[in-house]
């Protein structure tokens, strides 16, 4: 009997360790609504990954690499703005369900700094931070769900104060839901932010895992 009790104690201890480490990383997937605007925080190429994920999940979206609040206010269709040098806009939302002008219900940020990307868009880290703050403020004021995704691993991380970390600081603490790859969260930084701000966070192994999550979120 004593041996059985010890066995139970060990099992309980192991389960406790297992859950204490996995629960913060695998919170229940929250729900969000369409239509979606995808964008970049830092102009890395990872927003392309997010867009491909949404397509794979069968979800329509609008995309702009450097939207400002005028485009958010304009809603679906991005005010018919066309791509040009240093500016990309795509309308992939199902316009039959969500006609032009329909307010966005969710904004998904792909977080990661790219000097190349910011240079191409004529941005500096400071102007990018300021732009993100305007968008986030608008989202908060208008109850638009903010999802923040970091799938770039250590390549899109850095020392405190580096461009990548500034992008994380600009977006993650204000998100309604954070999704990161395990490689991105090796130091637990996203878990710490999520815990301190009580934000649900999901850790994934591969970008492919995002497909199922997006399906659940927008079910």
């Amino acid at each position, binding site marked *: 009997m004593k041996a059985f009790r010890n066995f139970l104690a060990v099992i309980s201890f192991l389960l406790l360790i297992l859950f204490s480490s996995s629960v913060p990383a695998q919170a229940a997937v929250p729900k969000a609504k369409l239509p979606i605007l995808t964008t970049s925080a830092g102009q890395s190429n990872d927003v392309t990954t997010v867009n491909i994920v949404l397509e794979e999940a069968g979800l329509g979206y609008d995309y702009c690499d450097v939207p400002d609040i005028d485009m958010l206010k304009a809603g679906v269709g991005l005010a018919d703005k066309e791509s040009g*040098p240093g500016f990309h806009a795509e309308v992939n939302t199902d316009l039959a369900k969500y006609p032009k002008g329909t307010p966005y219900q969710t904004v998904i940020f792909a977080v990661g700094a790219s000097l190349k990307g910011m240079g191409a868009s004529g941005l500096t880290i400071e102007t990018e931070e300021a732009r993100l703050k305007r968008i986030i403020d608008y989202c908060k004021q208008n109850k638009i769900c903010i999802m923040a995704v970091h799938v770039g691993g250590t390549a899109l991380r850095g020392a405190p104060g580096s461009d990548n970390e500034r992008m994380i600081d600009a977006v993650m603490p204000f998100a309604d839901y954070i999704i990161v790859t395990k490689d991105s969260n090796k130091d637990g930084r996203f878990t710490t932010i999520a815990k301190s701000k009580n934000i649900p966070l999901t850790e994934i192994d591969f970008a492919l895992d995002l497909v199922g999550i997006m399906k659940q979120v927008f079910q």
Partner: protein
Amino acid sequence: MNSKKLFIGSIMTLAVLILVFSLLPRTRQGTTENLFVDDLSQDACTVIMVAKNASVDGSTIATHTCDCGVCDWTWRHVDAADHKPGEMRKIYHINQYKTWPPQEGLKWDLYQNDFTGLEIPEVPHTYAYHHGMFGYMNEQQLGIGESTIGCVKKLYNNTPTPAFDITMLTLIAMERCRTAREAIQLMGSLAEKYGYGYNDGGEMLAVHDPNEIWVFEIMPVGPLWTPKSGKPGAVWCAERVPDDHVSVCPNESRIGEIDLKNKDYHMASAHVVSFAVENGLYDPKSGKSFSWKRAYSPAEGSATSTQGRRGRLWRFFNIVASSLNINPDTPDMDYPFSAKPDKKISVQDVMNMTRDRAQGTLFDRVKGLRGGPFGNPNYYGTTRTISSPTVEYTTITQCRGWLPGPIGGITWLSFGLQDTSCYMPLYAGITDVPASFKIGDHWVLNRDSARWAFDYVDFHTQVAYNAAIEDVKKAQAEWEAKAVAGIGEIDKQALELYNKSKTEGIAYLDGYCLTNADNVVKAWWKLGDDLLVRYNKLSYYDTEKRTRERNKPAYPDWWKKAIKVYDAILEPEEK
């Protein structure tokens, strides 16, 4: 001239200028916006390739102009090693572009902090090699040059899932391969099995040995790939440059139609066509043959339509095969993969090509007012020439089959901008690289770093370019041209010793290469000092005669006139 005449003259001049400017976009470069919309990879590296029967001495030659501007330029030597059964080789993510502040350490130590988690079985013996941003030359005379070519956007896989970046692939190829074909097969298979991408997208490598030179191009397969999928994690293709041909890669995919039955000239991953079909990049029903570059890395424009931003392809063929008379309006996608040069190419010819600024062509950077009074090609940068101010270093890898590997393989290395730098030979067999090649970055002046010696000269050349560059050319004649001319004698001495004792032969090469490099670096620091003194205050000082040339700088008449015209138009006389 009274003010009324001046006013009329100014109006007429202005009208002419407006007319010229209004015509330029339509006649030459399409829209001016095109200048700036190019992906920045267009500003990156140039690879020139010379097959063995197209070179003067029967060697194969490849370049890598490591054009970046903010990257790490340091070099390392890696020793050969024997490995016990069961040993594993760790695979690291290596970002081409990433640098660390000197106080944190050196790149070629710190990159090992980004272990991918993948270990692959070691081979019994790995070869010695030299590397900078990529592996360049091993002791078996495997040479590599690199150019970023980009790929269709949906194929990028910037997630950490793929284990291999392009740099890591080149290092593994250096460690394990003796021939270009072996290297291509190894890099392709590793990338397929473990995934390719993360820090890199579409990439081109010139892979050569003493007999063959190949263009190897590789793409990721999109961010949703996982190793558990059972599908290849990369798609790749390779084409051999015919033995009497030369070729080039200026950040654009160069492989068109492929014939996989012709294994001596084409290789590819098994799904090269089917993957393109699955992803909507090629339609077999279109009636058109499959083209690798049009499917995976299409690029629009020509030399003229981009005002020279895509001018390197045209310029290369213009230099080496002017008899082809290729029109600069030709879309880049329509260029031949390779061409037979009008005359055989020497390693010095290749050095000169890396210094090319499209002089005397439609894209000359110093024509008109562009170069200022001193004909400086670095002032007005619309045309992307083979030589770029963003270059970290340039390699010219040369494989010579008539010599043993350690003597036959040479990496000619120059730091910084080619026109003010000096190529130094590093034989494949040497057991180290100079200490000054291993350190330094762009942000802290370091007099122990070789690269800074060349930047020091380059900086002081800018002041009175057309005069100072002549002084630099004299130094290049003294150090570079003599090294090129004397390499046969070094080969001979090294070979004699090597045949008696490999160790003695290698020691001789060590002594020659390291001493020569140290001497060149010292000479360039002195040259920088001399230029500073000679062109100080633009007075062209003669230190021997202790005089200065009072008639200097002699501004050309056209420059003086240009100033008058400018003043007349933009700074009208104030009464």
